[in-house]
């Protein structure tokens, strides 16, 4: 039994004629202790998928149309609210892009971490445990830092506090939604290092959401690439980066400038990312795809296992892109 198993998740925003499908048939598993990356551009449904794991997406406007989310042996989508509260923080914890916005500005950070402990580990809700957690996430002089307000800390320190808070309940899965996007590169390197180190020491699984393929190479065991509400490619991280198969993954990798002194023209993907509710018919990448054929827009291609543990949603994945 996997730690997390998302089966054919379908989520709409709005109902009836207004309904717009944001997540369309996403299936994903995460084993205990594994790091999985969810990669995609804005509006591809990666954050909504991740937030569904603890049913954090407000209903309405969202509406779960189909699918199951099995977390630690129980279906989150069928769970009563009381049980959900135990799962949230207890089994799965979240950290977000803007640590400054996620922390409460009028409470000391020590008390905010203690609040998380009170809910899940009441016997440990004391300063000693808070200091231990702050030490764990590499905050210097934690004894004095617990009395700080969030505004007295830098972005990197705030993100460390968020991580400490997420770890307080010893979750089995940490969902990190673009945890370093708002941070500087040198601070990003620190936070990624910390996440890797914590994962090894505590053995928790990480679902890391990012738009940066470089982070995938640094962090992930497996990676799922999303486009317009669907997973288009799923593979081991090294394999995918070495030899991407889906035209979108290929194009995405070619369109990022690399640090190499290479001044060649960047390969661009024409057009724009389609918006939710406005996805093109058939293969959603077809209008922007360099190898699209007329029949690509006829029907949505299936996600097929083309090689062991390599899934691609494109019947023409073997065609070379010029």
């Amino acid at each position, binding site marked *: 039994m996997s730690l997390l198993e998302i089966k054919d998740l379908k989520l709409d925003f709005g109902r009836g004629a207004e309904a717009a499908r944001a997540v369309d048939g996403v299936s994903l598993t995460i084993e205990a202790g594994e790091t999985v990356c969810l990669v995609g*551009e*804005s509006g591809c449904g990666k954050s909504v998928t991740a937030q569904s794991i603890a049913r954090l997406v407000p209903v309405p406007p969202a509406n779960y149309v189909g699918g199951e989310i099995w977390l630690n042996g129980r279906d989150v989508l069928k769970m009563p609210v009381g049980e959900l509260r135990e799962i949230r923080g207890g089994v799965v914890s979240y950290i977000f892009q803007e640590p400054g916005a996620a922390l409460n500005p009028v409470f000391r950070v020590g008390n905010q971490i203690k609040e998380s402990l009170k809910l899940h580990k009441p016997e440990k809700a004391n300063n000693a445990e808070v200091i231990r957690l702050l030490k764990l996430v590499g905050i210097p002089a934690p004894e004095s830092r617990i009395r700080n307000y969030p505004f007295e800390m*830098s972005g*990197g*320190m705030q993100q460390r506090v968020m991580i400490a808070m997420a770890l307080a309940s010893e979750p089995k899965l940490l969902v990190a939604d673009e945890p370093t996007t708002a941070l*500087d*590169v*040198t*601070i*990003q*390197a*620190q936070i*990624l*290092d910390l996440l890797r180190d914590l994962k090894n020491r505590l053995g928790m699984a990480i679902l890391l959401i990012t*738009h*940066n*393929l*470089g*982070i*995938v*190479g*640094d962090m992930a065991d497996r990676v799922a690439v999303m486009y317009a509400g669907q997973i288009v490619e799923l593979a081991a*991280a*090294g394999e995918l*980066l*070495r030899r991407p198969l889906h035209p979108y993954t290929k*194009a*995405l*990798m070619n*369109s*990022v*400038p*690399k*640090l*190499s*002194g*290479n*001044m060649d*023209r*960047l*390969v*661009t*993907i*024409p057009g*724009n*990312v389609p918006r939710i509710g406005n996805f093109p018919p058939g293969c959603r990448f077809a209008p*922007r795809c360099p190898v699209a054929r007329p029949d690509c827009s006829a029907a949505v291609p299936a996600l097929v296992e083309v090689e062991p543990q390599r899934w691609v949603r494109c019947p023409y994945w073997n065609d070379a892109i010029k």
Partner: protein
Amino acid sequence: MQSNNVSLLEVKNLKVHFPVKTGMFSRVHETVKAVDDVSFSIAPGETLGLVGESGCGKTTLGRAIMRLVEPTAGSVFLDGEDITGMKGATLRVRRRKFQMIFQDPYGSLNPRMTVEQIVGEALDIHKLVDSSSARKKRIEELLQAVGLDALYAQRYPHEFSGGQRQRIGIARALAVEPKLIICDEPVSALDVSVQAQIINLLSDLQQQRGIAYLFIAHDLAVVEHISSRVMVMYLGKIVEAAEAEKMIREPLHPYTQALISAVPEVNPETKRQRVVLPGDVPSPIHPPEGCPFHPRCPIALEGKCSQEVPPLVEKAPGHFAACHFAGKKIAG
């Protein structure tokens, strides 16, 4: 730092200090040295990249050149003419030569103006067209130059995606046929697949029209891709400047080395040695004594780096670094 050709833009010992007001009577107690004694030049048609982390002063430097903030000291020469003291109409005429494009394609376009009004405003201010038919034609040309359909002229900014809005911002800058465009993080708010479109558009326009760019960004890979030379800024000072390729291959300053090693690598075969810098960027209100980088520097020498400010000197032809131990490799 000098380029070989006659320079289009020359910045000499530019300083921008902001007063910090604290307390009940708003007395000026301290100053932020956002830009501290920066000198460089840009040749016609050249792209100079400027990288640094948030708060290092890179945006302020760009705005001070545009005279959107007043420099505290130093001078800015454009086409050999000192524009530092210019005011009002005199300055406005010079603004035809240099324009700016901004990071936020949402905040930098007036939502109540159509694309035609946004792009045409610059034409009107500088009286570049004499009839309404010429104005219309010129706006169409500009929109086509940035890859937008001329039919879009009557639409409002909210009808466009982020990438398209950035194109409108570029068209607006191009309207006055500038010789220099200061690009302040022009692609960092855009999706990855759209970033490449804008980067290619900027290089095409440069080739067609010979525009020079000061390209400000925090993404080292993007800056290296588009620039011929790159400057690295830390706490208001230029700490290293060199040709882009040289800088990436043989960085001399430990901060540049750390920045390069911190860029996550897409290709699993080329694993760089990782150096994770300790600590945060210090507050520019209380920059450290001596070398501003020494508290985070893995090779700093107590007694030297913490006391003497290293000057920016030419260590190799065209390669400048401000470090007492420039060229020494930092260990991973």
